């Protein structure tokens, strides 16, 4: 894997100058590398990972399972691409198993999610049924364990 990408995925909060030093590249070279990763469509973007308890005060998040009928519609791809356009939709996957699409949405409150489901999703040609589950509490998010309260507090700062 590309070294710049590897460092980014480790999740340490490093800026391009720091990454440059670590990889023995100039900051410009890191910028070029990042630009190239974007251009190739490998790196879609970077965003901060917030503690879910902080986020939860402002937003609700839900996962929606969607069953789809493909006859006479745009097929899975057409419907999935259409659903992905909505700004409430964080991610959207075609799944194996008991339903077809898994959609993660965030909204300001529960009613807005409900509105999205019955006013938007349910009206789409081909959507046969939905099942909505709200997130209550996060224990791990994007690789960060949320409930971990400094397990190494007693570690001495110098040891043999």
């Amino acid at each position: 894997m590309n070294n710049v990408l590897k460092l980014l995925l480790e999740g340490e909060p490093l800026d391009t100058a720091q990454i440059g030093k670590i990889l023995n590249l100039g900051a410009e070279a890191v910028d070029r590398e990042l630009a190239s990763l974007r251009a190739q469509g490998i790196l879609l973007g970077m965003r901060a990972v917030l503690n879910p308890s902080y986020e939860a005060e402002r937003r609700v998040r839900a996962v929606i399972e969607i069953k789809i009928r493909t006859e006479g519609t745009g097929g899975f791809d057409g419907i999935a691409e259409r659903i992905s356009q909505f700004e409430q939709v964080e991610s959207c996957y075609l799944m194996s198993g008991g339903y077809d699409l898994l959609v993660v949405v965030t909204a300001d409150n529960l009613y807005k999610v409900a509105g999205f489901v019955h006013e938007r999703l349910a009206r789409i040609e081909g959507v046969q049924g939905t099942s909505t589950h709200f997130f209550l509490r996060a224990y791990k998010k994007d690789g960060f364990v949320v409930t971990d309260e400094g397990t190494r507090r007693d570690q001495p700062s110098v040891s043999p």
Partner: protein
Amino acid sequence: MDDSARFVAQHVATLPKSGIRDFFAIVSKMKDAVSLGIGEPDFITPFHIREAAMTALEKGRTSYTDNRGTLALREEISRYVARHYGPEYNPEDEILVTVGVSEALDALLRATLNPGDKVLYHEPCYVSYAPSVTLCHATPVPIRTVSSDQFALDPAALRAAWQPGCKVLVLNFPTNPTGGTANRQKLEEIAKFAIEKDLLVASDEIYSELTFEGDHVSIASLPGMRERTVFLHGFSKAFAMTGFRIGYACGPAGVIDGMLKIHQYGIMCASIISQEAAVEALKNGRESMLHMRDKYRERRDFIVRRFNELGLPCHLPRGAFYAFPNITSTGLDSMTFASQLLAAQKVAVVPGTAFGAAGAGFCRASFSTSYERIHEAGERIARFLDTLPARK
């Protein structure tokens, strides 16, 4: 007034305290210090190993065990050592599970040394070797290793350091604090010398999994050495299990029996919870161990390059997780360098002299920490160096 110190035995009273302790006292009171002084993995024990310890508690496995350790663990150790190091040890009477490798070395020295015996060891080295020998009323005989040789033990230096009365040779490859390793050819020469002088070899291989260049060779695997070598190892470094305090010794039954006496009267047995976790580490821990080793290697490359860029010449350590840069260009001795760096820029490194006189002019910087901290330490050290008259 507390004058109880008068009760302390003379050879203990005169034993110097570890230089690391003084340093720790200062750093622990300091806010936003960046510590490169930590001699343990920055990884938390892999979860599947922690889970094995939890399961032991859940099942109420909280008793004493056989003094030698559980048979299940000794069998796993036997398989592991045979597979990765070569020699085969009988789990019945050639393996002793101890409270960390430190206890294993201590028990070995106490089991074998008579007052006045001499013990050869290479320096710079782990802080406990010389004191452990002294506590046995024996005499430590250091062999100097040098940076031009990447702190490998030169067989000629060993020969030169030898004197009548030497009974034990302590080896530690890869070495804390230098990352020195020994290749097969050097070990063969050392082995030949050990046989010639009838030395017992105590081989502390606690960092062996963290070998970055070439394959680790255990001296115990060389012809004629199994019968005069005690292979010492543990779980702290490879499996990030420092707090479990679990290690082991493998060797000929006669010596292990001697160690067992000291262990059974002094310690009884290692914690059963740690022993259960250790079984899991040996059975299923290799993947996480390799992952951690790769991370250390990447960090090593970064920190070593940074020291060299900063004009503090640093060899590439071939194992363990310490960089050992030469700081003589600063015009300061090791202790002054470390103290001033800490006071001025709040970066903790350990003065090389904490690891013996041969560490003078060096300091130890652990790279078992995040890139962000290593980077920050590098920036701060650069600022510190700029203020030194010798560097202007």
